[in-house]
């Protein structure tokens, strides 16, 4: 019996080792690239360190940056778990954010209700934007990759039109950037910096650790609980593993797919919370873009598990900051930084897969 226990631990160790190895390997490649472009590796590493881990403010920044990335990752991961390839997180958070912002601008409510309401409306908007691709998939078998990509473009165009036209709030603000009217103060997310200071973590005011962090923690826990502790989550993971087996076992495959797709959209709606309700206080066409696609990589690296997504989002935030560091302190060109981030993701994903395959063969060989 002891031997068996030991072996199981070995699989766990291998699984943890994989992303670490990928990370280290990509650091080596990074240094090689830095040398190739004629910079000193030492300086590059110092630059990265200075911008990511050198002070509690920098670490807090990474945490802050990781919040929308976490939402993006968990949204995509939830769909992945059910076998749905939701490429549309991008469009879903553009639209979800807009609906949430509308609730923040036009509803008059006390803060303790208003904040939950804008969160729910953001989710509702995201879910709504996933609804048509989801229905098309379930009823007409139209592949979601096609529809969600199309819906991304539609969302961008729609939001651009609305913000420039019917919903334009120009004149209220100082900026010339097309934007909506200001969100009411009752719907704005406060910061948790003071709370962290009480705990002895000194975070300067310019870092945004706002209510969206709380939302992220709660969301992560709920998603984990639903997926791994509840019957419907089990069924969602089952259909993601095999539609045939799930059907055979009597699961309502279509309904589950529909639900997982829509929930993924609702989770995507949360991606914009921090930027809209904590940082900007209004909605604009110019909210950070590309997070939906980052979500795909994050879900992949995090192996679709909520805890994995937490680490992957932190890693991504670290990479973003490291990129800024290289930009700021060295002459490594911007494009090379993108190459490096891309390579890191590739390394981690590939090594993850190789190790997973290795574990599978080990297990097969040991089959009783």
């Amino acid at each position, binding site marked *: 019996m002891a031997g068996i226990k030991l072996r199981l631990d070995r699989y766990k160790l291998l699984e943890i080792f994989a992303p670490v190895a990928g990370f280290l390997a990509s650091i080596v490649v990074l240094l090689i690239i830095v040398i190739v472009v004629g910079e000193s590796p030492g300086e590059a590493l110092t630059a990265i360190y200075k911008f990511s881990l050198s002070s509690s403010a920098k670490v807090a920044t990474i945490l802050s940056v990781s919040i929308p990335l976490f939402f993006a990752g968990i949204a995509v991961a939830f769909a992945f778990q059910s076998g749905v390839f939701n490429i549309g997180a991008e469009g879903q958070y553009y639209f979800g954010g807009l609906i949430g912002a509308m609730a923040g601008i036009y509803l008059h409510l006390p803060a303790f209700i208003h904040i939950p309401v804008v969160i729910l409306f953001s989710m509702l908007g995201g879910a709504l934007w996933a609804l048509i691709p989801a229905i098309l998939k379930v009823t007409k078998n139209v592949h979601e990759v096609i529809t969600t990509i199309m819906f991304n473009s539609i969302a961008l165009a729609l939001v651009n039109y609305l913000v420039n036209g019917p919903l334009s709030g120009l004149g209220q603000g100082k900026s010339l950037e097309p934007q909506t009217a200001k969100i009411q103060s009752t719907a704005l997310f406060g910061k948790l910096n003071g709370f962290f200071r009480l705990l002895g973590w000194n975070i300067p005011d310019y870092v945004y650790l706002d209510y969206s962090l709380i939302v992220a923690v709660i969301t992560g826990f709920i998603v984990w609980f639903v997926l791994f502790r509840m*019957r419907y989550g*089990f069924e969602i993971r089952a259909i993601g593993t095999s539609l045939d087996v799930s059907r055979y*076992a*009597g699961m309502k495959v279509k309904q589950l797919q529909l639900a997982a797709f829509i929930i993924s959209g609702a989770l995507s709606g949360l991606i914009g919370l921090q930027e809209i309700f904590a940082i900007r206080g209004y909605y604009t066409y110019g909210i950070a873009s590309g997070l939906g696609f980052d979500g795909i990589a994050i879900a992949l690296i995090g192996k679709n598990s909520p805890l994995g997504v937490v680490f992957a989002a932190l890693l991504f935030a670290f990479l973003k900051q490291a990129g800024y560091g290289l930009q700021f302190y060295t002459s490594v060109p911007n494009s090379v930084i993108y190459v490096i981030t891309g390579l890191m993701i590739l390394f981690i994903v590939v090594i993850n897969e190789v190790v997973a395959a290795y574990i599978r063969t080990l297990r097969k060989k*040991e089959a009783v």
Partner: protein
Amino acid sequence: MSETLLEMRKITKRFPGVLANDEISFDLLKGEVHALVGENGAGKTTLMKILYGLYSPDSGSIHIKGEKISIKNPKEAINCGIGMVHQHFMLVPPFTVLENIIIGEETQRFGILNEEKPAKKIRDLMERNGLIVDMYAKVEDIPVGIQQRVEILKILYRGAEILVFDEPTAVLTPQEAEELFKTFRQMTAQGKGIIFISHKLDEVLEIADRITVIRKGRVVKTLEGKEASKSLIAELMVGKPVLLEVERPDVSPGRVILEVRNLDLKDYRKVAVLNDVSFSVHAGEIYGIAGVEGNGQTELVAVIAEAAPMEHGDILLDGKSVANWDVRRRREAGISHIPEDRHRYGLLLPFSLAENLTLGMHHRKPFVNRFQIINRNKIQEHARRVISIFDIRTPSELTPALALSGGNQQKVIVARELSAEPKLLLAAQPTRGVDIGATEFIHNQLMEAKKDGRAILLVSADLDEVMSLSDRIGVMYKGRIIKEFAREETTKEEIGFYMMGEKEHGRN
């Protein structure tokens, strides 16, 4: 004394915790069929993977025509004249037969594929070995039995003299198997040697010149085909005498549990696959469906278990029509199903045994509470109990299903479906690809279920199995049940006639 083609001397291979091959010696003569038999996990597959260069042995040597060689990968094995027909075919479905055969060995001139020369060579191979295939048909369009011929042609094309067949008849109808054996004889007449791996002892006895039995990684004995018998091989394989005949409990059948009335079903091409099928199964009764595969058995089970839409007719469970019910409702009403294609339908491979053992009942109490929260203790408790009752070999109930051997995976499915305590059990090919020990076990479990008063619909391509288990037998031919027998009033030969449709017209 004919020439030795292949000799494997004292092959030893160790995996973590398992001694898969323990000084196995095995040889193959020119022009013989040498059968390799043993239970799942006995080490047959490992030995063949070593021969094919997929594993390297820890010790021991391989000699071909007296010359010592080392095989590091399949490419080298092919160069040494070793060819393998795998259980799961290695073909590219959208490619033509010709393309599949020459793949990797294409002849070309100025970069342009030359198909004429290979076509001639292949035609010659087809004729000499009785392997006629339309060369320009796409592999995805031809039936499994013919696809196997393509596999064989593929290795013959590469000049194989030593041919390894891993359970080749598992995917074949009895007639196709006969054809295959003819090909075997044609190939051995040309001086080729064949290694034949099979669980079906009747076939082994029919075709093999010599039979090597291995158990737990060691050679138990090599027998001459003539001196062997089914019970002797079975005993050598398992290590103790095996009851090839199942002990049948004396149960008098109770009320009608399943009643199928005038079932009609057409496939997507509007071809009738079920045609006015009616029969009933009583509590405590095993109703066996005999028939050559592809005569509607698969569809019949699908209509009853999976709620496949039917054209016309009715299905009654315990007197109530279930025809419009979905799978979940049918399961809840007491239908269990051991699926024919268990790789596809049976298990969630990455999920734990505990989860797999509750699949289909996972949504019911006590496995979830009324808030739909999973009760993991109850699931694991249930799993531990079932694992011990059904003797499933696993390190623990939390092991993922993919870490189990094929025979054990099948046991998991049987265990799960029976532990649901069904009124009706649909057992489709319940022992396909399963070794003797596990087959005996599954048969006994079916008998237990019968004793408990469950109604069992047994569908099997193995006529012996149908004959030895069933109380009544229906013979299916072209989507109809053309004859129904009580088991005592018929013989294997008579059923065989009906299976071939010979007596179809004499019915009325």
